[in-house]
């Protein structure tokens, strides 16, 4: 149990003065400064589900969304994602945050946030410690890349400071400050704990406290009685570890959890026979799935052959067969709602058999036999079988090779790889998507071994481009280059269907992931 003893001194800061200085980006969010929606203090317990057990309560070693769902409720950041259908952020521990110039971000902390365990008020020193420790090589933080070109944090006052970057880095606002690497921890508590922690937080500051963890079973959060912000809606949140989506659906139907993601193949059933007192919502996911072709493999050296494959694959059939009509075809690696999303792909979603056959004839290839590696999930198997039938129509024999998870994710280094049905996770900034397809990543995460100088240059330039329209154009161009190479056929971004009781007002990111601190009672 986390100690709830909080003492800190209130230092009068000119919050209003700082607010006046917020940048346009900040202002847009300050519009939503209004505190989180639905946060009504009705009390009670919210029971929800996570698909994996926690791994670390240290933001430097957080393994992704599972840990972050808890971190976001027990820690504070300068800014947090704003719940809703559109991506944006709102102030959290910061009373003000502004981009002073390309490489300097000024911030001022609220004066009413303190750490548990008697570790006092949150100060700019805590911010400096939290951010700089992640880029410290000695710590070996797995999340160091999230901080990109962070140089240091300058402390200018007890609650004010400046984040100093080596060069401009636009993703900072979308995937660093409001996500894993943006969590602020107590310097004193961490130093007392030896510099890093494992599964037990030492001092927290958010609206909820980490009240317990039963390995492989559940994590319990409790209302932080010393939280001075908008009161959280629930006295307690129990997050059950349920690996299997079907098991989670049964638990929901049995009345044991109030919120869960459901599987895509259950959407139709839940729509036609709705569960009484529950609501099903569908959110577009950021994941991207595609068929990749290894450009270094001699069997796929012929661009006409690759283009024939691009035109032969019928994505709408895959959507109907493998995703049960619950997902839409994608146009690239950047999902709708993010800068750089393309309205249409160059090869189209539906198969163009005539064009595919013509390209096949132009290629001069005959008796083509290829292998496609896939991860052993049922949706992938169905999608692969549809692709197998699509390619058979242009005379290509496709063998499907199933791989178990850990084996599949090692395939990138396999030079003999031919086709692969792949799916990557994504964060809400296009930079994250293109990072894996630069030449430097060939054979690591760039499994197609796609190498394009213009792409690499654009990837670097877009990181620091402040003009959002120009930045979006850059990412559109990068996806065009990927598609023109013939190495990619984009399939879908999938979707995130969630179900919740009508007594719950869920607060979700636009991709359907929960922000528990903002959950309310309906």
């Amino acid at each position, binding site marked *: 149990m986390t100690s709830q003893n909080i003492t800190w001194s209130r230092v009068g800061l000119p919050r209003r003065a700082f607010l006046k200085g917020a940048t346009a980006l900040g202002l847009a969010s300050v519009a939503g400064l209004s505190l989180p929606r639905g946060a009504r203090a009705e009390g009670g317990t919210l029971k929800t589900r996570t698909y994996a057990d926690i791994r670390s309560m240290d933001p430097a070693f957080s393994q992704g969304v599972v840990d972050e769902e808890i971190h976001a409720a027990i820690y504070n950041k300068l800014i947090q994602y704003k719940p809703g259908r559109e991506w944006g952020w709102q102030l959290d521990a910061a009373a003000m945050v502004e981009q002073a110039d390309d490489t300097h971000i000024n911030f001022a902390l609220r004066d009413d946030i303190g750490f548990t365990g008697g570790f006092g008020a949150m100060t700019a020193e805590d911010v400096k410690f939290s951010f700089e420790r992640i880029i410290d090589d000695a710590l*070996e933080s797995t999340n160091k890349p999230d901080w990109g070109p962070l140089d240091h944090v300058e402390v200018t006052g007890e609650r004010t400071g400046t984040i100093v970057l080596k060069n401009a880095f636009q993703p900072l606002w979308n995937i660093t400050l409001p996500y894993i690497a943006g969590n602020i921890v107590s310097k004193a508590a961490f130093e007392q704990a030896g510099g890093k922690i494992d599964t037990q937080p030492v001092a927290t500051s958010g609206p909820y406290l980490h009240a317990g963890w039963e390995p492989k079973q*559940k994590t319990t959060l409790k209302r932080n009685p010393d939280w001075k912000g908008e009161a959280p809606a629930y006295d307690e949140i129990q997050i059950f570890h*349920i*690996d299997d989506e079907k098991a989670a659906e049964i638990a929901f139907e*049995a009345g044991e*959890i109030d919120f869960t993601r459901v599987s895509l193949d259950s959407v139709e059933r839940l729509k036609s026979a709705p569960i009484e007192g529950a609501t099903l919502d569908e959110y577009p996911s950021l994941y991207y799935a595609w068929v990749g072709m290894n450009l270094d493999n001699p069997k796929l050296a012929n661009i006409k052959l690759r283009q024939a494959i691009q035109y032969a694959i019928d994505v709408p059939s895959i959507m109907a067969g493998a995703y049960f009509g619950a997902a839409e075809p994608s146009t690239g690696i950047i999902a709708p709602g993010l800068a750089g999303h393309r309205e249409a792909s160059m090869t189209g979603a539906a198969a163009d058999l005539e064009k595919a056959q013509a390209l096949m004839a132009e290629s001069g290839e005959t008796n083509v036999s290829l292998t496609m590696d896939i991860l052993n999930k049922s949706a992938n198997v169905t999608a692969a079988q549809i692709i197998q039938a699509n390619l058979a129509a242009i005379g290509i024999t496709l063998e499907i090779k199933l791989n178990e998870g850990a084996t599949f994710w090692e395939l990138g280094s396999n030079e003999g790889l031919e086709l692969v049905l792949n799916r990557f996770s994504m964060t809400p900034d296009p930079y994250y998507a293109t990072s894996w397809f630069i030449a430097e990543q060939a054979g690591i995460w760039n499994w197609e071994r796609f190498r394009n100088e213009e792409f690499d240059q654009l990837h670097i330039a877009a990181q620091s481009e402040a003009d959002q329209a120009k930045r979006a154009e850059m990412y559109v161009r990068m996806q065009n280059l990927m598609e023109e190479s013939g190495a990619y056929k984009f399939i879908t971004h999938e979707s995130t269907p969630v179900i919740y009781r009508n007594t719950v007002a869920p607060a979700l990111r636009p991709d359907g992931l929960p922000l528990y601190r903002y959950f309310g009672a309906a």
Partner: protein
Amino acid sequence: MLTYILRRLGLAALITILAVTLLFLIIHMIPGDPVSTMLGPKASPELRAALEARMGLDKPLPVQIGLFFANMLRGDLGMDVFTNRPVTTIVLGQIPYTLVLILSSILWSAVLGIALGCYSAVNRNSLGDRLAGVLSVSVIAVPAFVVSLYSLLIFAVKLQWFPAIGAGEPGAWGDQFHHLILPSLAIGLSWVGYIARLVRASMLEVMGEGHVRTARAFGLPERWITYRYALRLAILPTVTVIGVGMGFLLSAAVFTEIVFSRPGLGKLVIDSITTRNYPVVMGSVLFSTLIFVASTTLADIINAILDPRIRAGK
């Protein structure tokens, strides 16, 4: 008797070493890399190298095996690569859930199966015997995961008599018992049929033996002969089967723990194999092997106590 027990314990130790070595090799031979799984896409070569060194993966396989056994003898099974917690703590935290599940399943299925088997043997070819036979064969044929799913749908979703997930609040015995009923039913059901058929067959065989006929000739009451003489011998194969069946029960527990989202050794093994979390896999495998070897050894010793011919090596 002591010599017999010592011989069995020696054999158990040898089996454990061989099984763990074999599993160690198998786990390291399958493709997949815990370093990639842990570090994810953001891993730099330096981070990879550091983690590999920390996990001992940079050493040759025979050295890794040697180190594993050397550390094991000191009670150190290493650290979980993800949570940085001691593997021994993690595994020991999960074992009670699996043991309680397995033992409760065995207990109720043995009590019911033995009673049903005795009834069938005593009332051979009666309507009750035939009904028991049909029921026994039916439940033997149904896999644990099917029972799990249907029991969940009927008793948790439809009737809402029992909880669908978890193992209950720690320390709340009533709640934990309530959470145990459906998973225990799922694992134990097929064993009821199996044990019933086994006891019936053994009983019928024993009832035809000379010492039972002699007892009858002496005019001893039938009930006395059945439960005092026949059952004691007829139960021997059941004890052996239950001992060996621990392996089956452990694998059934894997499915059941996943379907019911219960903590336990099975769920731990699956999670750690999926992520190639070698230290946790090896820790779980070691304890699973120990449970299996201990149960078979115990069954052998009980058999030897019940049957003097076994300890005499006849």
